[in-house]
């Protein structure tokens, strides 16, 4: 009689559930996964090396493209690291704007995550429900920074510009009647802040809607409860951060544990899970969306009452106004120096981490006193999570692997860098 052996199966990189370019070599015993070997590197773009060859300012755009669904959070870590190195203090209004956009980004990331996670498990309906709300946040990005995804809005010393007074509106077209356009423009009459405020009012009901579809759904629970259980101790050993760690019941949140910007002044709770399975991580992320919404609301209220500068007035670090450049020699020189040579940082090393939607996103910079980093290292949360895929998926079935990839919220931009 021939011996029955396990077989290997190739999963990806061209696979609908691979979240980009994940490639798994799976050793299968029938439907049961015995071992998984994740292969990475298919989206490697040498971001760290590129950043070492350019003045500091030029790399902000690369940071957007690391974790390309939580753009501004990556920028946030990078600009905070540079500011720490330079030892500068950012205006309070800029800090509030940054925090607000970090939380908007968190909601955007989690919306995309619930959409993809739902679709992986077969719940198609959540996908477009989540995208409907994400679209509004894209519009906020676009109105403030000019880009819907890769904003490059945070700059060392503040943010690129203050929030605009006008929210762009839909124009009438032959596809949509005037009434439809009026309905679409209802909450776009005022400033961007008014639009964000109307979104904040509306959003909790939307989260309820997603939860209606999933939280008590028996099939959803069967697919996620007790799948990929990670104990809090093991989660720490594996280097988990963010919702993955909190889902295991460990209340670790950098916004509270290593506060940066104005987070100490804001009220929010840290949701934690109990068992550390996919379902708990799902609940944690859903609650995080509500908490982020709460933070945005506080920021909007503060920003409405407190106008002020959003950028440092130090033109060695930030560009002077275009108007001044025309007749002020000093400004012209500053502009030229800043955009060609940039600025030099004092020698030293710095590590700055932020609580990105996926976990601890950190930037480590070694400076030798030049105008570009001697070494830049990105600490991406997804990398540690993906490394645990083998342990999480062992003994589960093929369909669960897809659920686990979904619950890890893997994005290859940051894993491969």
């Amino acid at each position, binding site marked *: 009689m021939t011996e029955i052996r396990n077989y290997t199966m190739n999963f990806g990189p061209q696979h609908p559930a691979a979240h980009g370019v994940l490639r798994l070599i799976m050793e299968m015993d029938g439907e049961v996964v015995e071992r998984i070997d994740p292969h990475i590197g298919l989206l490697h773009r040498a971001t760290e090396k590129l950043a070492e060859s350019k003045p500091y300012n030029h790399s902000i755009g690369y940071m957007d493209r690391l974790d390309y669904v939580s753009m501004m959070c990556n920028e946030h870590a990078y600009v905070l690291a540079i500011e720490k190195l330079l030892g500068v203090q950012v205006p309070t209004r800029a800090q509030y704007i940054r925090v607000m956009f970090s939380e908007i980004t968190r909601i955007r990331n989690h919306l995309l995550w619930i959409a993809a996670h739902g679709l992986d498990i077969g719940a*198609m309906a959540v996908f477009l429900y989540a995208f409907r709300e994400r679209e509004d946040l894209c519009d906020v990005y676009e109105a403030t920074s000019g880009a819907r995804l890769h904003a490059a809005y945070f700059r060392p010393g503040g943010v690129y510009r203050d929030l605009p007074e006008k929210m762009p509106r839909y124009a009438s077209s032959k596809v949509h009647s005037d009434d439809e356009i009026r309905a679409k423009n209802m909450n776009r009459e005022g400033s961007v802040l008014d639009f964000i405020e109307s979104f904040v009012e509306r959003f909790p009901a939307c989260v309820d809607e997603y939860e209606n579809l999933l939280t008590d759904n028996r099939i*959803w629970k*069967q697919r996620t409860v007790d799948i990929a259980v990670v104990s809090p101790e093991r989660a720490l050993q594996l280097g988990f951060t963010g919702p993955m760690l909190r889902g295991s019941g460990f209340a670790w949140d950098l916004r509270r544990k290593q506060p940066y910007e104005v987070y100490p002044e804001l009220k929010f709770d840290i949701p934690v899970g109990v068992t550390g399975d996919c379902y708990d991580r799902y609940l944690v992320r859903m609650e995080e969306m509500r908490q982020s919404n709460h933070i945005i609301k506080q920021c909007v209220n503060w920003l409405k009452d407190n106008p002020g500068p959003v950028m440092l007035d130090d033109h060695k670090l930030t560009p002077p106004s275009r108007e001044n450049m025309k007749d002020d020699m000093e400004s012209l020189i500053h502009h030229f120096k800043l955009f060609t040579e940039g600025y030099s940082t004092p020698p030293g090393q710095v590590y700055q981490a932020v609580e990105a939607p996926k976990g601890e996103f950190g930037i480590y910079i070694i400076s030798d006193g030049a105008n570009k980093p001697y070494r830049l290292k990105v600490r991406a949360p997804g990398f540690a999570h993906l490394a645990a895929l083998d342990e999480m998926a062992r003994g589960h*079935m093929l*369909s669960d*692997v897809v659920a686990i990839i979904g619950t890890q919220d893997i994005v290859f931009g940051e894993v491969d860098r």
Partner: protein
Amino acid sequence: MVDLIVSIWIALPLVIQIGLKIGAIVLPLLAMVAYYTLAERKVIAYMHVRVGPNRVGPKGLLQPIADAVKLMFKEMIIPTNADRYLFIIAPILALVPALGAWAVIPFTENLILTDINASLLYVLALTSMGVYGVVVAGWASNSKYAFLGAMRSAAQIVAYEIAMGFALVGVLMAAGSLNLREIVMAQQGGIHQWYVLPLFPLFMVYLISGVAETNRAPFDVAEGESEIVAGFHVDYSGMGFAVFFLAEYANMILISALTVILFLGGWYPPLPFAPFTWIPDIGWFFIKLSMVAFLFLWFRATFPRYRYDQIMRLGWKVFIPVTLIWIVVIGVARFYTPIGHWFA
């Protein structure tokens, strides 16, 4: 005029008569399948706050035609390591039973292609043939993904076939006949006579097994879009794929039709008096059929996908016991309780 047509019809050779009758069933059926795919896309789109196809023709009504033309002109790729003959036979094996079963479906009291006396057995036999198409396709493709899909499908259909069979036994006991036409006629007299009420658990089991039997969401693990990509037909393209597609949708319509016949009173109106009887019998048949067919789409838009072992558990541990118990209940109720006539 009518006399002329009748005399021409009688003068035709029997083979041609039968051929025409088959054509009269199969061609509208294929048109129904085509527009069922459009309905699916539209219904699911509206449930997902989208618009759905609206580019080809007015309101997107020509979309199925465009799809069919596209698939017909696509190259059908046969993988080098595939078993050529099985690879080509598999889609045919899937489609033929799905169409063949329509031979005994009574649309109205007199509108049946062949009124054989054990038509229920015939339907049961043919629908269980459909799985061979899936299994053979998975085997012939010589791909691990397709093979996994085929294995899942085989296990699933065996489990649900039994539950479905037992659900039918209940109907048999109530109607006392294996003939589909007589089963419908036993439900004459209004909605309270339809078997959906006395046999409600069996109705649920039959409907859900029907969804599982046709590999539709939430039981679509054989296709398992997000894990094994398209499962058994991952290597098919062009017409091979189109034929599988046709078979799947024809099966869905067939299961809807059978549900209507077995549990929802076939062509009879819900109440046997004036405003309801204005709609002709065949109208009622198709109204009910559309409602059941709509359920398939609704399920797909709403539910996440089951895992393979969970489907097995549901089939073996829930549905089969439920049907077995309800068969006993029917038997006891029929002979030993005052409401016995309701079960007959």
